[in-house]
């Protein structure tokens, strides 16, 4: 078995601030994902990466950057936090696009 660790668990930011979320997996999976979960809107794909140093835009990449410098880690940056924004960011990994394994999430609040 393996685990996906997301840090921090809770993140409070200020409007306009650049915020970075981190994710580590020890499954040795090739593919990693960042999803945003909003109430009533399900999971929307922000970025994914099929291997080290690869980045693919998802449906919601505007306002975000991502980085995959190692196979085991995938970070997401909110480039400019929006006031009153609240969402849960979920990191996931998968062995080549089949069954996705999720982390427990980072809950973002922007004040």
């Amino acid at each position, binding site marked *: 078995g393996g685990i996906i660790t997301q840090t921090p668990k809770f993140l409070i930011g200020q409007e306009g601030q650049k915020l970075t979320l981190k994710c580590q997996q020890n499954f040795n999976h090739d593919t990693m*994902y960042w999803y945003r979960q909003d109430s009533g809107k399900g999971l929307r794909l922000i970025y994914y990466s099929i291997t080290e140093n690869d980045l693919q835009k998802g449906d919601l990449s505007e306002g975000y950057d991502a980085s995959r410098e190692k196979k085991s880690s995938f970070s997401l940056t909110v480039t400019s936090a929006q006031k009153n924004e609240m969402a849960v960011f979920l990191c996931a990994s998968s062995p080549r696009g089949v069954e996705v394994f999720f982390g427990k999430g980072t809950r973002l609040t922007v004040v």
Partner: protein
Amino acid sequence: AQSVTQPDARVTVSEGASLQLRCKYSYSGTPYLFWYVQYPRQGLQLLLKYYSGDPVVQGVNGFEAEFIKSNSSFHLRKASVHWSDSAVYFCAVSANYGNEKITFGAGTKLTIKP
């Protein structure tokens, strides 16, 4: 482009009754299909998956789903629900040739009445 539609945002069912949660997908080829469940204050867990073969797939806790290609559907079913089945259920689709983009639906919140 691939997409998933879960037309029912909320479903309420009495304990012991049967259940169907609907999922329709859009994808030009033959997809991989998944159902995930998110219990309160927990992460998402895989319930079942379809890759190929028998269109009826069995999952954990008595859940099953049927892939109907002609209808682009992958509805989730359970013969008799339990109060512990209360959760949010997500349907997901990915391409079967490994482009590795996995798209989720908006989810269906299931509430079980005693």
